[in-house]
């Protein structure tokens, strides 16, 4: 009898596991593997031609003009990553600390900070496009109202400010997320530990840097890793606010846009090349996977069980 029951149990397990496994295999594993495969072929439109080995990789990395485009997009992704690390995660930590200390109005602000996260990216992008409008935008109107006419400028229309303007919109959009994760981490710190610190110092700086920060390390691991992945997969906001070409002059071009343009073509540049696009996608994937692993492992090591 027990043997038969075991078989029944095994059947059940199989029955429950196989469908999701098949789903994952079909819609996640298979596309990834085929993207890998596509990268090794020459393409004409959607028609696969010859196997070309590593030539697609070589082209996007070393042959002009692809080389400059790749480097430019990659450089912009790095700027985005570090800028958001400060603006989104840094500000998120400070906001979380303020909310956690239950300053007056904490309840209202907890909701206010998180609300933009719930908004659709499309809406945020559209909203900020309006904000940044050279003539009617609230940013320039405010600056002119303050008598700072010299600072009013076409934010999205010039190379020097376009990327940073989009980064600011992104930070506004998502700052509630790291705030929430850090706040949850802070709320896990036992009250008596904070009392113990207060018995030894009144400096908020010491409290934050020596006690709170090390003890929210698990939250930091999460938000750092997710920000890294998010920054190098960045697409929606620059696509809507800067366009598929990363205009003006490629100043808002990022790897996501560049890949999309290369693989699927563009209104202005009609060509599309699946092979180069796939090679780019594979490179982006490998880069993100490798660095995210390193970040996670390094940050995990400094986590402490409370």
């Amino acid at each position, binding site marked *: 009898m027990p043997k038969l029951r075991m078989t029944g149990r095994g059947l059940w397990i199989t029955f429950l596991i196989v469908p999701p496994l098949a789903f994952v295999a079909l819609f996640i594993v298979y596309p990834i593997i085929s993207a890998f495969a596509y990268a090794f072929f020459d393409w004409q439109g959607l028609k696969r031609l010859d196997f070309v080995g590593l030539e697609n990789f070589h082209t996007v990395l070393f042959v002009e003009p692809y080389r400059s485009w790749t480097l430019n997009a990659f450089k912009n992704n790095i700027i985005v990553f570090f800028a958001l690390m400060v603006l989104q995660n840094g500000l998120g930590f400070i906001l979380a600390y303020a909310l956690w200390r239950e300053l007056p109005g904490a309840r209202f602000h907890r909701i206010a900070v998180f609300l933009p996260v719930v908004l659709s990216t499309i809406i945020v992008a559209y909203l900020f496009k309006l904000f940044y409008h050279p003539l009617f935008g609230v940013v320039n109107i405010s600056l002119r109202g303050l008598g700072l006419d010299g600072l009013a400028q076409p934010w999205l229309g010039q190379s020097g400010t376009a990327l940073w303007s989009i980064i600011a919109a992104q930070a506004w959009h998502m700052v509630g997320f790291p705030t929430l994760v850090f706040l949850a981490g802070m709320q896990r710190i036992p009250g008596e*530990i904070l*009392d*113990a610190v207060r*018995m*030894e*110092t*009144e400096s908020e700086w010491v409290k934050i840097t020596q006690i709170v920060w090390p003890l929210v390390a698990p939250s930091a691991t999460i938000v750092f890793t997710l920000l890294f992945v998010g920054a190098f997969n960045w697409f929606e906001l620059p696509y809507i606010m800067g366009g598929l070409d990363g205009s003006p002059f490629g100043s808002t071009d990022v790897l996501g846009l560049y890949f999309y343009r290369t693989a699927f073509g563009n209104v202005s540049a009609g060509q599309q090349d699946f092979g180069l696009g796939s090679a780019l996608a594979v490179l982006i994937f490998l880069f993100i996977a490798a660095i995210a692993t390193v970040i996670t492992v390094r940050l995990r090591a400094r986590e*402490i069980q409370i």
Partner: protein
Amino acid sequence: MAQLSLRGIKKRFRETEVLHGIDLEIGDREFVVFVGPSGCGKSTLLRLIAGLDPITDGEFVLNGSRMNDVAPSRRGIAMVFQSYALYPHMDVYENMAFGARLMGLDKAEVEQRIADAARMLRLGELLKRRPRELSGGQRQRVAIGRALVRKPDVFLLDEPLSNLDAALRSEVRLEIARLHREIGGTMIYVTHDQVEAMTLADKIVVMNNGRIEQVGSPRELYETPANTFVASFIGSPRMTLVDVTRDGDRLGVANGGAVSVGAVPDAKALKLGLRPDAVHLTRGAAEGLAAQVVYTEYLGDNAYVYARLADGTLLSARTTPNDLFAPDETVTVTVEPGAAHFFSAEDGRRLTP
């Protein structure tokens, strides 16, 4: 040097007043224990002294300076917490060095103090360990060490033994008593355990419902409790309190006989307080209070008998192990002359003959 004065200390949390005016003087090198049931305000009072919560009303003076608005870290006070509150990301050495460095001591001085504390608390081999690698007793010693290296005027200890098992508890209790003798600082210790209070304290502060019921040495509290609360809180097993009416020199329990106890205060209705060693149980004596044995606790060197008096009060009596009573046995209770306590039947205050 440490001289603490609490003057009319009140504490309100929103609308609820939890301390109703505490007046207390604590002298240098005294070991003071705040004791009382849960919710009596003893831990709250300790947190006010530490500065962790603001004082609503009244004045806290330490060595002549008003402390009400001084930050906790500037009061010269160190605290040992119930959960030890060690910093989980620092090893034992760092836990102790953290506060000392913040005081601005130089490196050599910090090292010297930690070495001294480690020796005194036998922490030598643990210095490189993280708190989660330590046992409860070891964490407790680190928490004390962390307080020690700051060389504070006053040590506060908030139920420091409550997370330890029974065997360890008496060991650490002795340790704390020894420490107090060695370092000679003023210590304020909060507990709900009257045995800890009795064994450690120079001075016990019994609290109840946000008020001080009595302040005194363990002996004073045991021998002359100021009221029925203190009388029943201090001493184990508890003092029996029974309503009696006076009939000449004898005191009678409602339809349960009468007993003579020596001199009696001049009041018609009283509460009679009887410690377990103040009563004798006999079988079939002519005069005394009637009682029925409920159960017996045999403790080896002596035994306690619990018996129900005629009005339903449970009386505890100490007997010798040779003199055990069976449940349901009827006994007669007599009282050692001069050993009884008397309290007002109205407000529970102590009365003297």
